[in-house]
């Protein structure tokens, strides 16, 4: 037979998101709370800079690591989270945070390495680990801990043996945020057990009622952490495909080895947009974050009124209520009966079972209607 996928690829199942996407596409009256990207458009100043760069004919490759102005701005921007990364050697601009995650896994995972990953979690990590030849080790986080990762959970899963930890807070799908003390405890576990960390901080700017803490800023962590961030969420730039990795020079050099052969450089137009975004769109980000925060409180208070248990998600744009039963059946019935799409928690790992990922990256008007429909659905159930 021709063109047979190799075992690694064949071994990765199709994403459970796909099924709900197809169900939701079947009807046109659906309000979707299943979307993992902002409902805002990229701030106009950034779009306008991208258009201008096109008008000027700036459509060639950039340097492998990204335009130097952009790396300098990223380095400056990152200081807000106590990061100090040299723009020349410690910043790598990538095609979305997605590429940065993939690069980090392919660069630092050796075949057979154990890669710990807290769950429920963003769906790309586990396949990424498998594509890289690593062995994923799921570490369960629970509603009782507000979905924070704890040293106890790490130990329980046997993560002392892990070579690497993929760490993502604020988290997709739970919306969980970890505070500095909780992160310090995880950092200590990593230092004690000599575990490197890939920290996906793409939702850092969407942290509410408090500020984001980066695990890389904890003692002993900088030298063992790759920080990943991007423009998709904070700047509503998903389709422009731009992200970046920060890390010690030698590690970034190694990631760039893969990047320079497989990607050459991140999209040039997007880099122009990102430069302008960092220069002038801080207010726009604050406004979007303020709006998400209002929606977050609205959704959480509606869940309380409806009687679905939901821990206080403090980041990203997701709430993760318990649905009291089979999440997949709940989500399917909710879609069929009330035309509201949510994503069953199990899609994000077994420990997400019994929960729903509810995205509030949707206008207040739609959220109100959707929450009313969920209320009706729960009443009739």
């Amino acid at each position: 037979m021709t063109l047979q996928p190799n075992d690694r690829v064949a071994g990765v199942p199709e994403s459970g998101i796909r099924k709900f996407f197809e169900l939701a596409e079947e009807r046109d009256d659906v309000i979707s709370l299943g979307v993992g990207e902002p409902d805002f458009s990229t701030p106009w100043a950034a779009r306008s800079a991208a258009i201008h760069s096109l008008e000027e004919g700036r459509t060639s490759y950039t340097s492998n690591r990204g335009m130097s102005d952009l790396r300098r701005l990223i380095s400056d921007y990152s200081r807000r989270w106590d990061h100090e990364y040299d723009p020349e050697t410690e910043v790598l601009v990538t095609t979305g945070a997605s590429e940065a995650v993939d690069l980090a896994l392919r660069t630092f995972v050796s075949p057979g390495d154990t890669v710990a990953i807290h769950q429920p979690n963003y769906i790309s990590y586990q396949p990424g680990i498998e594509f890289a030849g690593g062995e994923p080790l799921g570490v369960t986080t629970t509603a009782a801990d507000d979905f924070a990762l704890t040293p106890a959970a790490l130990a329980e899963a046997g993560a002392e043996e892990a070579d690497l930890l993929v760490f993502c807070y604020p988290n997709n799908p739970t919306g969980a945020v970890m505070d500095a003390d909780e992160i310090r405890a995880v950092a200590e576990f990593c230092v004690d057990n000599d575990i490197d960390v890939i920290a996906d901080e793409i939702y850092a700017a969407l942290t509410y009622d408090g500020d984001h803490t980066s695990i890389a800023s904890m003692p002993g962590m900088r030298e063992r952490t790759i920080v990943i961030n991007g423009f998709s969420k904070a700047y509503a730039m998903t389709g422009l495909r731009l992200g970046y990795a920060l890390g010690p020079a030698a590690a970034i050099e190694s990631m760039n080895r893969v990047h320079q052969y497989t990607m050459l450089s991140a999209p040039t137009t997007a880099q122009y947009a990102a430069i302008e975004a960092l220069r002038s769109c801080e207010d726009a980000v604050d406004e979007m974050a303020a709006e998400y925060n209002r929606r977050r409180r609205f959704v959480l208070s509606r869940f309380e009124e409806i009687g679905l248990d939901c821990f206080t998600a403090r980041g990203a744009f997701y709430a993760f209520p318990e649905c009291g039963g089979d999440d997949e059946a709940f989500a399917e019935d909710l879609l069929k009966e009330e035309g509201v799409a949510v994503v069953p928690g199990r899609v994000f790992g077994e420990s997400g079972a019994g929960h729903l990922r509810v995205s509030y990256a949707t206008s207040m008007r739609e959220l109100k209607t959707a929450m009313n429909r969920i209320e009706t659905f729960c009443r009739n159930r």
Partner: protein
Amino acid sequence: MDTKRELLSLLSTDARESTEDIARQLGVDPERVEALLDELEAEGTVRGYQAVVDWDNTDDQHVAAFVELNVELNRETGYEEIADRIARFSEVESLRLVSGDYDFAIEVTGDSMQDVSQFISNQIAPIPEITQTVTHFIMETYKEAGIDFGDRDGDDRLSVSP
């Protein structure tokens, strides 16, 4: 942001939210929202609640003009006094003292261009301190009060995504 500040910012995007929905979004009780609203109104921070109307979508005749006014002040009469006289006309929608080539920028509405012109020539121009008026009729409104009148709709996101 404190709750009062946040309430203001919420009202300035949508003043028609119910008290209950505002309370949910701010994470406070409805009673607290009512109290804050009373406070904002009493202290004169919130001066009113209005719809942003695209009159072109109605059958009404609705004409609006921006008018530049130059004034000459004298010992007895300052900007405040002149502003007070102009503001009392219900035809005057807005009135601002501005920097630059002229002094006041006002917006005037009426049922027809003639209506507006007559109002300017009969009521505004004769005010002794006013030395010059320049009227700009509004031909098309593209954006008002932060709201874009262009109908670019379209949520083209995938309905379910990671």
